[in-house]
């Protein structure tokens, strides 16, 4: 969603010394910017955002992700402000040795076997959404389809009303997009989310069920339950991390299929290609860019890195590096070798990666079953989100 703030930002004149991921050129098509930087200056810098680096090669992104001593996760978003202390939301904001115990609390509910239990409900959600617009012969797939799938699935996992999904989406928008430049909006959204979930946490502490909130309440770290603030922090994190991200990944995949009829037909004729196609969509259209804070001086790929700066850790740029992926800018739905970094590299690998894959697979399969023929509506523009999660926010399709 475009914001007024971006229009007043000074335009970028040199991407290697003055990059800005809120620039409209980046928002609309970042790939040529990254390709150019990767050739000329694989670790760019900007004085904006109080100082930040931008690695664009796979090797540099990987080296930074693995070096948890020099690069802290205490801040995971590049913003215009750096309030002290940063708001902890373990495990995403944790460094070793605190990271592992926090992450191990969250991993068991997200294994592939656990995700399989969600599949029937996820398929039903997709079909309920399609039922609402299929007769119209057209839709905005970002607003009427992709945005509702992850939020309803996670509401189902948390056992809260799926109809509260629109409220969740609003909070996430305020935190992930508006919050980059407006701390007040961010804090208000965090507070409202906490108030909303506090009632559920209290009720399920008294009478636990088998939902995800209860599982976090029942989890034990060193034999002790988590303090209520940490339980709330983990629930907030699950929502923030699990909604815009997969909404974006599903949307970009459908956008690709709308403009590439040959891939669409191939997936319909050869449904066995779905797993490699999903991985390729994740590589080519990876939605998530993370961040790190440099906490000690170091050298990455020959480039001196100074403490006190942030790093915009662009997994999407790493995924387009031709040194790692032959024909990196081409979407090859049966690509055989694909070590993409869409879910991160190293200890902070996305907890919800199995959930994201399930949602993407189900959303695309159900769509192709019901609407095998569709294309972009040339009369209405596709628009993209800005900030750290990239995906279509207006996706006008015509069916047939």
């Amino acid at each position: 969603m475009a914001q007024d703030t971006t229009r007043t930002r000074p335009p970028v004149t040199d991407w290697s010394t003055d990059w800005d991921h809120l620039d409209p050129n980046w928002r609309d098509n970042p790939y040529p910017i990254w390709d150019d930087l990767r050739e000329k200056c694989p670790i760019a810098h900007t004085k904006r955002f109080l100082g930040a680096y931008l690695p664009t090669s796979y090797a540099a992104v990987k080296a930074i992700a693995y070096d948890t001593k020099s690069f802290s996760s205490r801040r995971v978003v590049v913003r215009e402000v750096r309030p002290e202390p940063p708001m902890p939301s373990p495990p995403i904001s944790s460094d070793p040795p605190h990271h592992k115990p926090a992450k191990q609390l969250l991993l068991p509910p997200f294994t592939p076997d656990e995700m399989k239990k969600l599949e029937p409900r996820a398929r039903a959600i997709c079909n309920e959404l399609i039922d609402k617009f299929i007769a119209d012969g057209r839709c905005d797939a970002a607003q009427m389809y992709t945005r509702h799938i992850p939020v309803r699935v996670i509401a189902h996992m948390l056992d809260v009303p799926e109809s509260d999904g629109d409220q969740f989406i609003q909070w996430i928008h305020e935190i992930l997009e508006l919050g980059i430049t407006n701390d007040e909006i961010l804090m208000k959204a965090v507070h409202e989310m906490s108030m909303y979930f506090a009632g559920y946490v209290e009720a399920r502490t008294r009478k636990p069920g088998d939902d995800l909130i209860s599982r976090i309440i029942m989890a034990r770290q060193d034999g002790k339950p988590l303090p209520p603030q940490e339980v709330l922090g983990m629930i907030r994190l699950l929502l923030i991390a699990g909604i815009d991200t997969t909404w974006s990944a599903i949307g970009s995949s459908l956008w690709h299929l709308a403009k590439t009829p040959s891939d669409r037909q191939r997936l319909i004729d050869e449904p066995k290609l779905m797993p490699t196609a999903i991985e390729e969509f994740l590589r080519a259209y990876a939605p998530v860019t993370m961040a790190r804070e440099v906490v000690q001086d170091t050298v990455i790929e020959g480039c001196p890195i100074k403490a006190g700066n942030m790093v915009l850790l662009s997994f999407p740029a790493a995924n387009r590096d031709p040194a790692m992926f032959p024909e990196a800018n081409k979407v090859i739905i049966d690509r055989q070798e694909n070590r993409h970094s869409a879910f991160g590299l190293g200890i902070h690998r996305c907890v919800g990666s199995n959930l994201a894959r399930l949602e993407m697979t189900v959303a695309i399969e159900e769509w192709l079953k019901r609407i095998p023929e569709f294309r972009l509506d040339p009369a209405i523009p596709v628009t993209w989100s800005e900030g750290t999660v990239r995906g279509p926010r207006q996706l006008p399709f015509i069916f047939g």
Partner: protein
Amino acid sequence: MTGGKVVRVRVDPEKCQGHNRCKALAPALFELDEYGNSKEIGDGIVPEDQLEAAYLARANCPEMAVEIIEE
């Protein structure tokens, strides 16, 4: 056994981060623990009809945690 050679797979537990790519591509060769981290099944010996799956598992591990040992 393949042409007299024994081929084994092994997951380096220090490198594995639970991306689940090997399990998805070669379910007969890998198993997951309660946290979703992977380990080779049994002694990791790869039957001939699983060789392709084993190499695919290695080629798709983002952490380079899957090893193939030819003895």
